[in-house]
């Protein structure tokens, strides 16, 4: 996936689309949009930087996991097998991007009074386990795009196969000098940024 920072307007549509699509637990956002102020007065501007799990080729979360619960599919998507996770949080500490989350069932979105969304969350996720963005594998496997990509009004999230040199994301990375987040971490991310 390529994220075009120039196009992001900070509407958080991706953040909410992900929340709705995945029923993520309270306080857990797989697709946040970070804000950063750059420049000096009077030439100041605010950047919006969309983020998600970077599906690292050399994933530190996978290395840190003592149970082997984190695995990589053939297409490079890194997933958590909740049934194997024993909840050490080692992956949460190891992820350089804050993309690993730990789900502790401590009530719903509005505290102790649960709403229907909370019931769905409890059905879907196992308390005491690690959670992460799945690149919406349930959609990708049906030939659809991840919810965050589908919903972005400015098309700043571009999804495709980075192995295919003619794919839209590959061309963007080539033509606009794409960069990986925190390259010094040496994780070789599958998510790139252009600006």
């Amino acid at each position, binding site marked *: 996936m390529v994220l075009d920072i120039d196009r992001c307007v900070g509407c*958080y549509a991706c953040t909410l689309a992900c929340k709705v699509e995945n029923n993520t637990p309270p306080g857990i956002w797989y697709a946040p949009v970070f804000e*950063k102020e750059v420049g000096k007065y009077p030439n100041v501007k605010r950047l919006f930087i969309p983020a998600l799990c970077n599906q690292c080729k050399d994933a530190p979360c996978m290395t*840190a996991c*003592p*149970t082997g619960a984190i695995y990589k599919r053939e297409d490079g998507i890194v997933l958590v097998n909740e049934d194997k*996770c024993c*909840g050490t949080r*080692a992956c*949460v500490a190891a992820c*350089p991007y804050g993309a690993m989350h730990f789900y502790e069932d401590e009530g719903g979105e509005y505290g102790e009074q649960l709403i229907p969304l909370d019931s769905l969350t409890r059905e879907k996720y196992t308390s005491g386990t690690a959670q992460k963005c799945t690149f919406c594998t349930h959609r990708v496997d049906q030939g659809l795009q991840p919810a965050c990509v589908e919903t972005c009004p400015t098309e700043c999230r571009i999804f495709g196969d980075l192995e295919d040199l003619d794919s839209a994301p590959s061309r963007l990375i080539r033509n606009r000098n794409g960069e990986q987040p925190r390259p010094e971490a040496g994780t070789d991310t599958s998510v790139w940024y252009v600006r």
Partner: protein
Amino acid sequence: MRSGSPLTFSFRLEPKPQTFWHVPHAVWFFAMGLGSALYLNRLLFGIELGQVLGLSLAHVLGLALVAVGGLILISDLGRPERFWRALMNPRHSWISVGAICDFLFLFLDSLYILPDLTLQGRQPLASFAWGDAWWSFVLHGIAAASAFIIIVYPGLVLSFSPSIPFWNTTLIPLQFLFFAFASALGMAVAFQAARGQAIPTTWLVGEALLLCVCLLLVVFHLINAYQVRGTARESARRLLRGQWAPHFLGGVFVAGLVLPLALVAVAANGDAVLMAAVSVGVLTQVGNFLSKFCVLKVGLYPPIF
């Protein structure tokens, strides 16, 4: 709505403190390190703390501390009933390697010391004593290697991760190693004085050397962090001038390292030996624990851009 909602909260791009490793983890690191170092000191250098029910107190305390550390680790899991799964990925995960060594150590050392158990003058398990057979040396070797790994693996867990630059250095497991031996020897010095026995000069010299190495490692770590721009420097700044400065400067630097060094010198001179030795024993534990606690507390994730 909870904090973290994009409707009420800005996801500001700034260094974020880690929030998952707390006091229980520091206790886990401390207990396991101290317990294993007590065992290794006894096995390799014959440093004893005394006897209880015919058993070596160094072994009993070592076993108890490693067991307590293991229990803390298990109780902190999100799914404690699946703790056995933490033994499944030793090729990649230091936690997995450490968990395997914990169990090996607890099993082997229990087998080793139980034949010495003396109840009402009798040793009911004496027939299970290891003796001098070749396999007893092999089992001792495995137990000693396990104990060594138990001391350093929490440091390796921290240092292998690229996520937090202040932790991403070999100096962390080295600090864990030397602090563990310094506090184990400090405890031995205190027990020796409390039993009214003369403290061997080699113990005091060894303790002084270990404390000096710890001091150097801490200083190198800070200098190293200050040389790396960004989040590692901010972590070091928080240790020296931020919220955790009293714990680090007062607890680790002064109470845990400088003061015990001075007290070792006092004890070596033969002045107020009991007070000095007991103080060394207590202060080195404080310094060992707080060194781990402070390192955990100043862990910061850099922003992704």
